[in-house]
Each structure stands twice: as C-alpha cells, then as structure tokens.
C-alpha cells in the first residue's frame, strides 16, 4: 500500500490561463463551488431513481396500491420485506450469490493477470488474434452458448451447483479482464522489465514483484466489476441453477413476478436487499480503487 506522493491540495500558482477566463469574473473560491454543485446535482439526478426504490420498499401493499409508486409513504412498513422473506429463501440465495460472485471475482482477476502478462508483456505472436478469440466470450450472445453449457454442466455433474456458474463466469469475465490489463501493460515502460531482468528475476517473480504492483489499481477495478457483473447475471444462472437450493438473488426475485400478478412491494424490498451486498462490496473496494501505485512513485 504505497500512498499517493502528490500533495492533492496544492493549488496551482500559475497565471490564470485563457480558458479559465471565467475565473476572472468570480473570486477563485466561487468557481470550485460551482463545479462541485454542478457535479453534485448530476450525482443526485443519477441516484434519485434508486432512492425512489428505497422509499417504495418501505410502503405497505395497500399504500402502494392506493397511491402509486411516487407518493411519500403513509407510514413505515416492513410488509414488503416480510412477504419477500416468506416467498424466497433469502439467506440461502444470498449465500449462493456471495460465493459465486466472490470466487468469480478472485479467480477471474488472477486469470486475467496471468493471461494479460503473456499478451501485454510477453507480447506473444498473434496477440491481437488471441485477444479477438478471447473476446469472443464477450461478443457471443449468451443464449447461443446455453445448450452446450447445460449439457457440459450435466456431464461434469456440476449442474445445480455453484461450480458450474463459477467456471463459466470466471472465463467470461477474465476475457474482459485480459483485454483491459494487457492494454494497460502494453504501455508500461520496458525499462522496468529490463531492470527486473538485470536483477535476475525470473518470469514469475517479475510478474508479481514488478508488474503486479503497477496494475493493482486496475485489478481492483476488475475485482469490483467482476463481482457486480456476476452478481447481476440472470440468464445463465437461471438455466444452470434450476434447483432452489442453488438459486442466486436475482433469480429468487424473479419468482415474485407471476403471469397475472406481481408482488410489487415484495419485489421492491427484494430489489433493495439485492442492491445492498453489491453496494457494500463497492464501498469497501472503492478505497483500493484509488490506491494504485503511480509510475511516478516507481521512478
């Protein structure tokens, strides 16, 4: 964990540039507040719909039916949560989702690092072609893969276990991770590698002691992405995990949508409960997102 070496609060002591001519009309302090407020408002606009969901999750059924989704709740009700817990085995689904997403995030990131090392640093022959082939994973529609995946999971007896989904998504996510990391690695200054080689570091050690620290920030991003993307996956888990014991949270929520009736308040509550773990995960990892080592620190 090497800390940022830049003093972030250093206000540039430069002459005022032309394109910030606005600043001349305002005292310096005002502009920064204007920017902050503009960004803050944008942030609120983006979050507002989600706050709506939070509000509706605490409405009673009768309140929702009588006043619709946009009114202020008449009272604080946990009816939706109760109904959700009655219909869905939430603890079980939560455990499944956490296991699947966490393992995919961990395996996927390691696999991405190794593959990207070969393509971005090793610069093996046919790198672009390789990447295109790997990226097929992100290009092919999932329903085009589903029959063979189903039969494959059946043949390996991983169907209805979390492992089938973990294996599939580790590969699908690592394809993306390989691309991102190899793109980043291909811009690393080669002098670093040379230095490592002169130190007599082998490939394995170079990867972990030289490359890894440099791309750690990107890897944290991947970690977050993989976790959240896998958490929210719907279709492949739906097919590979038809048993209730292996259901994930999004699939459990779908059971609230009947053909001729929707359990709306339970659905709102369930949706909120589905968001929380990913939100917590993001907030925990958000710190590491800004902890990448800058090249400046290495030099």
């Amino acid at each position, binding site marked *: 964990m090497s800390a940022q070496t830049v003093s972030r609060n250093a206000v540039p002591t430069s002459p005022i540039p032309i394109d910030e001519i606005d600043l001349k009309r305002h005292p310096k302090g005002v502009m920064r507040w204007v920017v902050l407020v503009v960004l803050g408002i944008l942030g609120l606009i983006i979050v507002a719909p989600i706050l709506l969901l939070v509000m509706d999750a605490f409405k009673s*059924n*009768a309140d*929702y*039916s*009588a*006043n*619709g*989704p946009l009114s202020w709740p008449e009272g604080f009700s946990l009816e939706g949560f109760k*109904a959700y817990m*009655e*219909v869905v085995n939430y603890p*079980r689904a939560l*455990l*499944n989702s*956490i*296991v699947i997403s*966490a*393992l995919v*995030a*961990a*395996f996927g*990131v390691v696999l991405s690092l190794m593959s990207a090392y070969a393509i971005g640093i090793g610069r093996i022959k046919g790198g672009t072609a390789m990447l295109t082939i790997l990226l097929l994973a992100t290009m092919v529609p999932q329903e085009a893969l*589903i*029959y063979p995946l*189903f*039969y494959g999971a*059946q043949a390996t*007896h991983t*169907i*209805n*276990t*979390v*492992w089938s989904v973990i294996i599939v998504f580790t590969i699908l996510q690592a394809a993306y991770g390989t691309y991102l990391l190899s793109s980043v690695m291909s811009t690393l200054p080669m002098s670093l590698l040379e230095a490592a080689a002169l130190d007599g570091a082998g490939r394995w050690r170079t990867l972990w002691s030289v490359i*890894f620290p440099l791309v*750690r920030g990107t*890897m944290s991003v991947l*970690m977050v992405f993989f976790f959240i993307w896998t958490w929210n996956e719907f279709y492949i888990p*739906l*097919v590979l995990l*038809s*048993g*209730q*014991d*292996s259901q994930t949270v999004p*699939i459990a929520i*779908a*059971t*609230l*949508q*009947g*053909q*001729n*009736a*929707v*359990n*709306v308040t339970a659905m709102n509550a369930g949706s909120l409960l589905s968001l929380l773990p990913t939100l917590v995960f993001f907030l*925990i*990892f958000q710190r*590491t997102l800004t902890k990448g080592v800058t090249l400046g620190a290495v030099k």
Partner: protein
Amino acid sequence: MRGAAAIAAMAVGGTALSGCSSGSEDDNTFNILQYEDPTQAQGQGWKLAVDIFRKKHPDLTVRMQTTSFDAVRKNAKLMLAGNDVPDVMEFNKGNADGGQLAAQGLLAKLTGQVKKYGWDKKVTGAMQSLALYNSLGNAGSGDWYGIPNIGEYVTMYYNKELFAKAGITAEPKTMDEFVEAMKKLKAAGITPVSSSASTNNGWNQLWLWYSLVSAYADRRQVNDFTFLQHPVNFSQSPWSTGTDQFQQWIDQGYLGKGLGGLNFEQAAVTFLSGKAGMYMWNNGQFVRMQNEAKFKWGFFTLPGAKMTMGSSGHLWGVPAKSRHKELAYEFIDITLSKQVQNRIGQLGGLPVAADLDTITDPVTKAYTARFYETIDDDSLSFYPDYPVIGFLDFLATHMQKMSSRSEGSKEFRDKLQKFYDTGRKEALVP
C-alpha cells in the same frame, strides 16, 4: 490484493455449505417443482397437499421447490431433456409452452391415469381443453398431458362508490346498460375503464378486445379459432362486431388515453387508487382487491356477453424422465382432493373442484360460484394468444396501434387474418 485473498477464503468456506445439489440420484427423494407464490391460495393448497403426501409416505424425503413462471417458460425444454428432472412439476398451458413439451416427448401421457383416478370427473368442460395436446402440440384434442388445479376467468372489477357518484344505480345487466354506465362515468369526469396496452405486460386492452369478441361468439367459433379446428374468417362476426365495438369504445375515450406505455400493474394501481370506474382482469388480482381496495367494490362478467374469457390454470405434469411416476400420480390426485381444493377455494383461488358451501367469505363464494356457472354452461372462451406461435407479440403490437388510433378495426383484422393463417399453416405441419 489481500482483500481478494480474504474474500476467496471466505467464499470457499461458504461453498462447503452449499456444495450439494438438489438433484440427488437418491431413490428416496421426491422432487416437486412449481412456481406459484407459496403465500397465495394455490401455493397454500399445495403446501397442504405436500403435508398429506408426507404423512402417507413417511419414509420419503419430499422436496417442494419454487421457481418462476418465466423460468419454466425459458427453461423447461432444456431442463426436461436433461438427466435431472423433477418427479412432478407445474408447467405452462398453451401451444407454445406445454404443447411444445408434450409434442417433444418431454412429458408423460396421463390419459390412462385420468381414467384410472377419475380426474376427468373433477376437471370438466373447458377446464380440460388446455390439458389435452395432440402430436403437433396443439391444444384441445389428443392425449392428456397436464392436470389443472384451478381455473381462471376474467371479470370487470368496479368501484361502487364511483358508480354511485356517476349516478349509476344498478349493476348493468345488458351490453346497452354497460355502455350507458361508461357514458355516465365519462360524463362525471371519471375514466370509465382503467386499461393498458404496453407490449411489456400491458394486456388489458387485449383482454377487453377479446372479451368483446367473445361476447358475440359461440362455442364453435371459439374452438375453431383457439384449437385451429376450421379456418377462421376475421371479416365476419364475432370478429367484426367485437372489434368494431372495441374501436368505438376507444374513440369514445371509455378506455382512457396514453395506454401504449402502461402495463397491467400500473392499470391496477390506477383502479385501486380510485381514479377509474372499472378494471378488467382475471382472478390474479382478486385477493389483492379484497385486501387492498379502500373503497366498496364489486365484480361482474361483461353483461350480455355470450362467452367470457377464461381457462384452466397452469398444469401439473409428470416429466417423461420422472423416476417416481406412480408417486407423482398419487400427488396429483391429492391436489384434486376435496381437502386441498376446499382450502384453495376458501383463500379465493378458484379451484376446479371444491364444495361451494365450504367457502365462508360471501364475496369469495359469489366469485367462485359465478366461475362454476361459466364452466357449467360451457361459456369460457380461453385467451386470445394461444392458437399460433408469436401471437401474443403480434396482438399486443396491434392493440397498441388501435389504442393510439393509428390503426382501425378493419385494418387490424386484415393483418390478423394474414398472421393467423400463416401461423395456422405452420402449426398444422410437423
């Protein structure tokens, strides 16, 4: 990446807990798969059925698993072709769903069991139609593949307080009286019927339209259309009569405006919040009306109509690869027993074979009684989207067009003729 390592370790610990799969090859496990809300009428009835079944088979491990309607729609074909199938499962009625499963040999034929257990005495009339499929997967004839526990029918739910406010003193008994009531509501500034026409679950307009067609149809016309028995001419009655009247209602503004983006749930909320006089839906919303309407309400089937929309509910079936077929039949028989059927009835679930007298709540009793009348006089006309594949999407799109008045009755019926005839041709060849 210490965090990652910690998470991985945590997760591996977790997998140890969730290692085992549901599909144990164990001969002592009986797996039931269904997708009804376990807290609602049918789900409660089935809980009771499982209890009874367990008592009969104390040595069996009985597992009831819940999935979703949509999952079965997408998944059943794949899952039932696999090695690990439930012993008995609920499946979706209709040619595109259950019909396909039956035609592809994924479900066991139940005709012999029906005779043996006498299920056809409990499941009668129109309740049988969507349980029978022929070798092409078309409903209405052939072998039994599924057994329904409940029925469905479509009624107008109406807000008695708004009716009174608009000066409507009695429940309309004829089509003319009904139109008069809508007129009065509109004059009083109340949207007469809360409706919806989104291609994303906005089926109200579709049901209103087909209810009007059903109003002028007879059994033969309905069966020709639904079960592809004879060619249908959409330029004649009931299609012309019903669709023309539907267009009039749209033009008069009886069904509200801006329906293209609304779904049935939003339309239900409009009605439940007292903003519209009526709402047409099936029993899927009956219990909700009872629990959540803050006004006095009632229901009636479309007055003066010859036929009413409705059919059986979804079906119990036995997968062809089920390892416990005999037990599955026994379980299905329990779900049709008086005990289970009456429980479903008391909770407002429209069971196919309950004793009306065991239903204590007067509204529920009346609602169920009216449903039994429609079975007894054989006046149920099913749903419009069953006959040909891709029909729901086609109809929804045109309902949207009619609702926004960019298409008229005749234009719609011409396109309907073409689509239906093409689909019918495809459905009649293997």
